[in-house]
């Protein structure tokens, strides 16, 4: 698709220029193609959408809501985790509530404070652990637990091409290749009854494309950044990747596409790693006797 000499808004990595109308078409087709290619959504689903109120998750919810209007058998419910980050999360919750109310989408909010006894800001004063590590463990735990309680058939997340490329590189740089086996448009290595299947419909959409789509559709209400993000290893990998993409256009696409070619082999290679046992305390999936979330909850109590 190489369109409109009039008012181009974006130049794609193949040097194609698209106007607003054709960009929307291009972006939505890309998401639908990803859903079909990787068999992410079936004909009948009770889909959970993990949202934060940021541009990625609202873009995802906006597009999947369009899809569910065309197929009444796809039911959507949004789920939001309130970690308890002052100056950041309250704003995004406000945006998420406004969006869901306007679009008549049911929104369930769960907080660290209610579920684990204190907000993230306070946890970080008690525990000597990196913010993103702790936050990630609790967030994944809650999302999975609540998805099961809400009988979701799948949980869609707003992970985009940039997120995935960062994870691939981070795992490579830290010799964590077994973690890469869990990546891909369908997360995890194999189906497990204790885990709700997580899917990433924006897998092949770059962060710039998602932001452009969100801007056009007025989904960019909130531009605040998590105060802990700059401390992360991911943020440094992100910057390296963006520098590379600017010099060598198409780098991110190449990373994801070459990764997708080896992913089936990685999933076979590490399939035994995915034998899940269950936490003796909470009965949620765990690699050892006690899951990481319960271990941290214990530390918070002591």
């Amino acid at each position, binding site marked *: 698709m190489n369109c409109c000499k009039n*008012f*181009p*808004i*974006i*130049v794609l990595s193949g040097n194609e*220029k698209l106007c*607003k109308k054709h960009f929307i078409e291009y972006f939505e087709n890309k998401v639908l193609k990803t859903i079909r290619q990787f068999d992410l959504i079936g004909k009948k689903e009770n889909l959970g959408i993990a949202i*934060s109120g*940021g*541009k*990625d998750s609202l873009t995802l919810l906006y597009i999947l809501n369009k899809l569910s209007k065309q197929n009444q058998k796809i039911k959507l419910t949004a789920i939001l985790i309130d970690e308890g980050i002052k100056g*950041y999360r309250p704003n*995004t919750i406000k945006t998420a509530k406004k969006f869901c109310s306007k679009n008549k989408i049911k929104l369930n909010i769960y907080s660290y404070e209610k579920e684990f006894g204190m907000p993230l800001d306070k946890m970080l004063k008690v525990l000597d652990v990196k913010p*993103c590590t702790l936050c990630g463990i609790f967030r994944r735990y809650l999302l999975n637990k609540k998805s099961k309680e809400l009988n979701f058939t799948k949980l869609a997340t707003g992970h985009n091409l*940039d*997120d995935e490329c960062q994870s691939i590189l981070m795992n490579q740089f830290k010799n964590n290749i077994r973690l890469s086996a869990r990546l891909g448009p369908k997360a995890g290595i194999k189906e497990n009854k204790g885990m709700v299947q997580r899917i990433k419909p924006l897998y092949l959409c770059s*962060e*710039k494309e*998602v*932001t*452009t789509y969100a*801007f*056009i559709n007025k989904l*960019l209400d*909130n*531009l*605040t*950044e*998590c105060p*802990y*993000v700059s401390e992360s290893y991911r943020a440094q990998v*992100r910057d390296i990747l*963006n*520098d590379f*993409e*600017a010099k060598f256009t198409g780098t991110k696409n190449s990373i994801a596409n070459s990764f997708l070619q080896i992913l089936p082999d990685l999933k076979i290679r590490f399939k035994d790693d995915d034998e899940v046992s269950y936490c003796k305390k909470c009965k949620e999936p765990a690699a050892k006797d006690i899951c990481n979330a319960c271990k941290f909850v214990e530390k918070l109590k002591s």
Partner: protein
Amino acid sequence: MKINVFYDRENKEKTIELANNSSVKDLLAKMKINPVTVIVSKHDNIIPEDEKLKDKDNIRLISVISGG
């Protein structure tokens, strides 16, 4: 020419001086901003990097970086 730029990530407005006939790409280079990390809007419309700018244009830079 002088361009008024609002960069949302810094939440402040700046005036940037550029040579006549400069483009968005030149503006970002002058501000040392990687074009991959922003979208650029003029009068609420997104404009591509090769678009030429005019004196006293009002430009908004929107960061594409995820909130976390």
